[in-house]
């Protein structure tokens, strides 16, 4: 089987399987989950049993059901954030390239400053003021993350904008909008596909991290980072409760990374180190 005209490698198939699996969980959560999202159905930190496959959490909710519901919020929030950050970043990046040196300077310097401090620090400052609701969370991370997308989009488009075919279009008298949409964008997007995967992983881990700190998605909504926080204490009793959601996070990122790795390898050239010597 081929995807985009290329045959996925074994590891790419593993990645595709994992991602599809979690997406199905997320979409059909209410039909798949054995119990409700916020339902207390068992004992505190109940061990895994035939009834509760992965055991219960700190207030007796079914961990499996919460993981299934958590797929919705965690993946959903990260996905929306990434799409938003990509849209903002790409448009700004293109604007910087075709909009002339003044716009470029303003945007680039602003992004430089934003990038000169760690994203987490910035996010913490913003969240300390606005509090954490899902829209705030998405907006904050999307805007912060778009600075990284901006950098890439600008660099990629800059390389394209100096090519002769763009010059031809400009010399023909085409408007900025046409040049951006028809000449630059179609050529800028393919190299950014893998970046989308990487940004998703980053945002996904970032949301999970914030939730783990208690500053992300708030209970009673189930989300994987928050679940780790809820059951964190169980670890000192030797119970694996916090490991299940943590493992779900890990699996999802590994899955996306495997796909990204495959996409990157399609375009990779062999380096000098593999020459016959």
């Amino acid at each position, binding site marked *: 089987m081929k995807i985009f005209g290329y045959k996925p490698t074994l590891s790419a198939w593993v990645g595709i399987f994992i991602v599809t699996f979690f997406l199905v969980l997320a979409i059909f959560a209410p039909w798949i989950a054995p119990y409700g999202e916020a339902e207390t159905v068992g004992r505190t930190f109940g061990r895994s049993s035939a009834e509760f496959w992965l055991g219960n959490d700190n207030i007796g909710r079914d961990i499996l059901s919460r993981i299934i519901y958590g797929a919705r919020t965690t993946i959903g929030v990260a996905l929306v954030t990434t799409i938003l950050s990509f849209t903002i970043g790409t448009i700004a990046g293109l604007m910087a390239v075709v909009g002339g040196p003044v716009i470029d300077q303003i945007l680039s310097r602003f992004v430089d400053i934003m990038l000169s401090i760690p994203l987490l620090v910035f996010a913490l400052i913003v969240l300390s003021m606005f509090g954490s609701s899902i829209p705030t969370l998405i907006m904050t991370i999307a805007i912060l993350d778009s600075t990284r997308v901006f950098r890439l989009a600008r660099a990629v488009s800059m390389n394209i904008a100096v090519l*002769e075919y763009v010059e*031809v279009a*400009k*010399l*023909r*008298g085409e408007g900025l909008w046409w040049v951006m949409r028809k000449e630059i964008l*179609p050529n800028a997007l393919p190299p950014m596909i893998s970046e989308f995967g990487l940004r998703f992983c980053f945002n996904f881990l970032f949301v999970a991290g914030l939730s783990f700190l208690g500053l992300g998605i708030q209970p009673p909504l189930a989300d994987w980072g928050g679940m780790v926080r809820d059951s964190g204490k169980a670890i000192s009793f030797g119970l694996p409760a916090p490991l299940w959601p943590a493992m779900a996070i890990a699996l999802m990122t590994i899955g996306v990374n495997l796909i990204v790795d495959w996409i990157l390898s399609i375009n990779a*050239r062999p380096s000098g180190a593999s020459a*016959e010597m």
Partner: protein
Amino acid sequence: MTEHVLKINNLRVESVSGLVLVDNVSLELKKGEVLGLIGESGAGKSTIGLSAMSYARAGCRITGGEVLINGTDIRKQDAEGRRDMRGKRIAYIAQSAAASFNPSHTIMDQVCEMPIQHGLMSKDEARKWAIELFTSLGLPNPQTFGDRYPHQVSGGQLQRAMAAMAISCRPDILVFDEPTTALDVTTQIEVLALFKKVVKEYNTAALYITHDLAVVAQISDRIMVLRHGKMVELGTTEQILQQPKEAYTAALVSERKAADHIAEDVKVEHNEPLLEVKDVRASYGSFEVIKGVSIAVAKGETVAVVGESGSGKSSMARMITGLLARTSGTVTFKGKELAPNYKHRSREDLQRIQLIYQLPDVALNPRQTIGEIIGRPAQFYFGMSPAKTKERVAELLTQVGLPVDYAGRLSTALSGGQKQRIAIARALAANPELIICDEPTSALDQLVADEILKLLKKLQDELGLSYLFITHDLGIVRRIAHRTAVMLRGEIIAQGPTAQIFNPPFHPYTENLLASVPEMRTDWLTDVLAKRQQKTA
């Protein structure tokens, strides 16, 4: 048995994906003999050169054959044995010296490295020997030259330093891989003379890889013609140049010879003025690239602008199109002045002057179909309906000699020559009166380039087009230009009908330039050097 210093038997090189790059090539080299490997891109000539050192670039594998150096098969050696032969018995001179020298070490360190590492000399001996080599290769201040870093010396000097590095172990064989291609003609001649001297003085055998028959004719005893990884013909240099046996060789030779003479049909005068450039100056930042230039192009005429790199000839093209705004002077088209910046020109002004670029790969948008690329100007300037555009695209494709069904394809799968035809069709789609050609053939193989030149000529006859042809290749100028302007450091130092420019009395620079272009005879280099000696004496 050991009469041949290098003997390659049935060499086969494949890419990792299974493509055959070199197919069953055999050659032999006696002591002091130079074999020229000639061919167009993809002929496998560089791959053979590297295989002679049992080296395959990433993505390639040597899959068959023997490479005997002084009777020992280097391919059968272990890593240690191969290493011992490389550099010591067989050394390599690459196309780009700038990229082949390590930026982190001095030239001296890199030249001395080989004899020291191969255990031939002590550090002091190697240093002395390197200075000796620098002296004999005519490098300035040989005592201190080696203390500089690669980025601190010029391209021609670096190429000579690479020659010094290659012969530092007194190898039996030198592999020259297009060593003068990146140089300007006037530099090329010096470096070429030097290589000839080195080969003679040290009695070294050499493989000389190039795409230019005239260059290889100066230095080789025998020539091997390659195509698609296979040998086409092997013979003495005289025989290949005078009586090529194979049709392919004959085509290469006759095309190259045509460049030595001024074509008859360019000796026509044109008088109806089209483009007039008067006293124009232009600069990049504070650096002035065009310093008061005047030039005119008449209807139906081809005017060539020749010069070496940095002469400002490409800036001329950009200035006329308005990509580089002039700071003073006037540019008029059919008597009407053109705005300095293309952004301020009318659609009509833009439509009348079209541009063709050097690299067809980047001149065509890889995400648009050929139909979209060619059709857009027709739509944009003349508001053609989709059906009308389709008709026009088909007409243009036929005009540039491509099948009509290419319209639905992407340009990425086409060859360089075909891409350049598409670029020409796109220019034609605007119904221009003047086409500025910026080195449109210099990225193409010789025979393909020739086809493009013929196409441009045909279109000129049919449509009455004018061309402003920017090039560094005097051969092309002789074949197509009615008038010629020679540029040097941003100024036009000579201009007039091509026949006049190419015949005495010359401007001294033009003479030097003309004298530096290799001609298709084996004694050309010796002649030129002898003449120069006379002059200085």
